[in-house]
């Protein structure tokens, strides 16, 4: 399945799932931040030199490093 890390710049997609094996507190935080299945997210920018990816979800812009962006699964909407 594709993840947030694979998204090209400017693309919008729908969140499919968050990896269940992530530590509980991180899952909880992602959920509260708006990373919940069914919601839309947009990749604003790929960080330079495979640095953190920049993404809009809900009303915020977050940057997430690869290790966590790979755990957010998406499907095209």
């Amino acid at each position, binding site marked *: 399945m594709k993840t947030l890390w694979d998204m090209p710049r400017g693309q919008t997609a729908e969140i499919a799932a968050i990896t269940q094996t992530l530590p509980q507190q991180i899952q909880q935080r992602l959920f509260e*931040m708006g990373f919940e299945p069914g919601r839309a997210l947009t990749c604003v920018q790929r960080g330079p030199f495979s640095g*953190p990816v920049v993404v809009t979800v809900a009303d*915020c812009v*977050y940057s997430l*490093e690869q290790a966590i962006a790979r755990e957010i699964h998406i499907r095209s909407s």
Partner: protein
Amino acid sequence: MKRIILVGKPNSGKTLLFNQLTGLKQKVANFPGVTVELKSGQFAGYQVVDFPGAYSLHTLSKDEQIAVEKLHEALLDDNTALIVCNLDATRLESSLVFGLQVQRLAKQHNKALIFALNMIDELGRFGHHIDTAALSKQLGSPVYAISARTLEGIAEFKTALQQDAAAASAIPELSDLRPDAASDLKQARQLAAEHGIKDTVVLKNQNRIDSFMLNSISGSVMFLLVMFFLFQSIFTFATPLMDAVESIIAYIAEVLTEALGPGVIHDFINDAVFGGLGSFLVFVPQIMVLTLIIGLLEDSGYLARAALICHRPLSYFGLSGRSFIPYLSAHACAIPAIMAARTIESPRKRLITMLTIPLMSCSARLPVYALLIAVFIPDIQYLGGLVNLQGIAFFALYFMGILTALMISLLLSRSDKIEPTATDMPFILELPTYRLPHWKPLLQRVLQSGKHFIYRAGPVIFMVSVVIWVLSYFPAGGDDLAHSYLGTIGHFIEPIFEPLGLDWRYGVAILLSFLAREVFVGALGTLFGVSNADENVAGLAENIQQDGLALGAGLGILLFYVVALQCVATVATLKAETGNNKLVIGVVVAYGLLAYLLAAITYNLIG
């Protein structure tokens, strides 16, 4: 005294509101995680407490942990009269996620709670209006629209604050609104969809700027330019101001000493007061320029972007992108920077960041750098004055500090002694809106930094100057420094500094600078003042040039000051924040030895 506490999402304007209420000047800046400890002030007979920001009651970083722990304590405390939950009106959903969690807690503890809907001015600029009456009804707690920046609605808010704190009318009634925590989240989303402004409107500008600022090529170029400008400007902008201060001090010295006529008093005023204290005051403009530039960066919102850009490279050294902000602010002073490391998500990376922060060249080193650069580096301009050779030398010294910090970080991160058991939290950072500087508080901060610099080191330098002067003036009356009391003491310690190519005068200055690094300049200023009679009081650099200092020895001193941890307050803060005295002492000793070694090697290589 009854208490009003101020909580909310990071970067939502809590501290600016707090400052407006209490008249204090706590640090406000445009990135999440500015406030990392509780701060209190007074408003209308209440104690107001500003909390660190938190995204959720389920915490990830140390600053959030403190906020939530203290919130729980406050809820149990009878003195807590009112909870003010600050919301960012332009980011209603994410503000309400935490807001509704707090509201539920408040209800459970039977505490009054109101919402401050802050940043209403920005909302107005987008032409959006929030119906606070309706929102308040749906939330079951009062909502007040305010702007802590333009002061819109603040007068009404102050009145309401006193009323709601006095009466318990603001106790939320939510039993019939929302059954459980999961529905809080849903409610936050619904309310934001109904009342909030569309994210595409708010984020449009920000994302457009970011597509340039965070682009691989333009973003990297921007980053390097900003950093170069930062360090170069400390030099370029400050030089004319410093020259001005120097001539003023020299002028006052001349007038005053002339009026006094020759004698011991004349010599004392000239050498100890003007030579010692004067050569230190010259650097005040530089500290202020540094504060101004860092402040501009902090207000703009660029720092969060810089942290992002640095994340990958810093990860390689065992650090986080979030280490960037403490590292940068450490160039002003290490102590707040060590505190700021609380926002670093991973405990391991936080510890490494804290231990290496003292290697950043804080403003106390500026006088030492500036003095020795003026001695050795000619004042040559390139590109029509835009770039300056002395400025480049400054840049190189700052860079040395950063490089050393990275190397030590790499070493520490490979060691399994550093928090081996802690789970690593991932790097997640919110990017704030770009904002124009908030000039008034910024300029106040700049002035404050100058004052603080004088108050902190001034008395020490003055005292040291007086003691040095007395010890070096007598018994010979200033004619024979080598045989003064100080000269005799100095010869004892000379062997320590011989490998560095330094005579006892430099040795005394270096040892005394463990009281405060700036003392180096003050002490040398006094010593050269005594031996050079009356010429050139504030022009210490020229005195050193005439006296002759070997290039290798001078560079050695510079490297020594880059690396050595000479600040007692920094050590104390490190101990408190790490809770590991052994480790901290180890680091202090290691930095000291490294500094000495580097200086000795440099002297022996260059001579």
